[in-house]
């Protein structure tokens, strides 16, 4: 067994990024993710990497663009309103087919909101991380260990598909401490020589990294090509976890901290004889549509447990083609649903009639 250490989620993901070969971090402080920048500020100079506190979020994301264009693994991190500021740059990364990892440790919103945990950036990250037609790979950790594993995975997927990926965490995951193993295995190297702008040495044609296309036909072609890649991702990269679903009559769908609370509630409900289980999306895009749709033929109801006013619930309803009712169990504004909140929704779902 690998040696374990005790880490805060934010620190753990920062260390995982370094182990994944990230030597370029650009950020701007905002609670509750500041430990990532603080950790990078301490570690990067020691290992010959670059830590730079930019003058703003907008500057930071454009520095990511530069480092990524040069073929380097680069990462930035922020929290909800800071990610909104980065959205133009995220779109430019997508439009230029550049890999990078963006961390969002979500806090309450809208507006300045508050510093306590939230999941209200589901729409922002999965539907509209910026202008134009594009997708982000969105990974949702539910433990400090997954903060590590999915950071590693995020860099790999970003390189593999030449696109930005996002780790969608929340304040709880960022601030909590758990034992973790940092054994990550080999970092897979991708050949970037066909597109990276890292110097021709006068031996080859220039590689051009750009999201501006003068001719509409050309821009259209890039968009179509990009969506073919997205289709491959939807077919091959879906990740989810199932908990006590074997005989479940009620299916909870939850990610991140909401999944942890739900798991405790499921155990309690099972003690009372209620057959409830959970499908926990690990990739929010691509969303685990197929497994949910299959579950819809077995259960009588779904419950979407979220720290938002009901965002993921729309994807659940779409995935199951509205075949079964979907209840919403939510707390917002920095509040976290309690085990009792989830149990209340389980009881409500259990009292629903209808065919199984």
């Amino acid at each position, binding site marked *: 067994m690998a040696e374990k250490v005790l880490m805060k989620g934010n620190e753990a993901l920062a260390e995982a990024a370094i182990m994944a070969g990230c030597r370029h971090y650009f950020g701007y402080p905002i609670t509750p993710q500041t430990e990532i920048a603080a950790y990078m500020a301490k570690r990067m100079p020691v290992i010959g990497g670059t830590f730079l506190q930019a003058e703003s979020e907008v500057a930071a994301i454009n520095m990511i663009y530069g480092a990524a264009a040069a073929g380097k693994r680069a990462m930035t991190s922020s929290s909800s309103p800071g990610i909104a500021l980065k959205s133009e740059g995220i779109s430019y990364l997508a439009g230029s087919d550049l890999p990078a990892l963006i961390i969002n440790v979500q806090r309450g919103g809208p507006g300045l909101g508050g510093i306590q945990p939230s999941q209200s950036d589901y729409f922002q990250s999965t539907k509209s991380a910026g202008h134009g037609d594009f997708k982000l790979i969105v990974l949702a950790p539910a433990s400090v260990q997954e903060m590590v594993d999915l950071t590693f995975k995020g860099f790999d997927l970003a390189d593999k598909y030449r696109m930005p990926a996002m780790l969608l965490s929340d304040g*709880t995951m960022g*601030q909590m401490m758990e034992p973790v193993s940092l054994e990550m295995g080999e970092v897979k190297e991708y050949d970037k020589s066909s597109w990276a702008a890292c110097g021709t040495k006068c031996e080859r044609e220039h590689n051009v990294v750009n999201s501006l296309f003068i001719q509409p036909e050309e821009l259209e072609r890039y968009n179509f090509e990009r969506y073919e890649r997205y289709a491959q991702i939807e077919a091959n990269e879906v990740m989810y976890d199932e908990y006590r679903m074997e005989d479940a009559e009620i299916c909870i769908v939850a990610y991140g901290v909401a999944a942890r609370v739900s798991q405790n509630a499921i155990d309690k409900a099972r003690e009372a004889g209620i057959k409830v289980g959970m499908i926990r999306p690990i990739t929010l895009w691509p969303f685990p549509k197929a497994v949910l749709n299959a579950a819809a033929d077995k259960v009588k109801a779904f419950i979407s447990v979220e720290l938002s006013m009901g965002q993921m619930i729309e994807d659940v309803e779409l995935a199951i083609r509205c075949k079964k009712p979907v209840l919403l169990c939510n707390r917002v504004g920095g509040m976290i649903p309690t085990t009792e909140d989830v149990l209340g929704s389980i009881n409500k779902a259990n009292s629903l009639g209808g065919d199984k």
Partner: protein
Amino acid sequence: MIMNNKRITLFAGHYGSGKTNISVNYALRLKEKHENVVVADLDIVNPYFRSKDSESFLEERGIHLISSEYANSNVDVPAMPSEAYAIIDNKQTVAVIDVGGDDRGALAMGRYAPAILEENNYEMLFVINKYRPLTRDCASTIAVMHEIETACSMKFTGIVNNSNLGDETDEETVMNSLSYAEEVSQASGLPIKMTAVKEDLYDTLKNKVVNCFPIKLYVRQSWAKATLD
């Protein structure tokens, strides 16, 4: 001798070393002997998970908690509680001060340092955990120690070995940390005042570890216990 007879006990260290939980446990032990026990949460670094979480628990046990009115709120105002001066002025209290992590947390403590040094009735304990990656060996731990001392203008008087892996802490976790703590003690010239262990490990370890201090984890949320496969 785990419990000292000083009026003020300060716990400082690398962030995540376990200062808050040690502070709460230590205050409860003090309460067994002293009427007027106060805990001050001077953490300006952590937005969540602080002594404030244990406020009602402590108040029910007759221990007064002093903390920023903004602690655990939705605003990011790293303010010091105005009431903190009462600890300095009211010599009738026996006080535990939970200092924020690292040099950044300790910096804010510095404003109380002249008064505490003048009264000269304190212990300042350095909380260490070898399972924290940035203090995993003696050299890095000593570096953090010097940063904290410089930031708050005070010197440590002892060490609390709180080496743990959270819920996964077992006997071996503690035993494997003893030589590390000893090394830090040698290098700093500071005595190891106590080795903190989870309550359920206390019976097995109390005869193997000098000055073994049993602690309970008081800060627990509904989501904290879930272990995902």
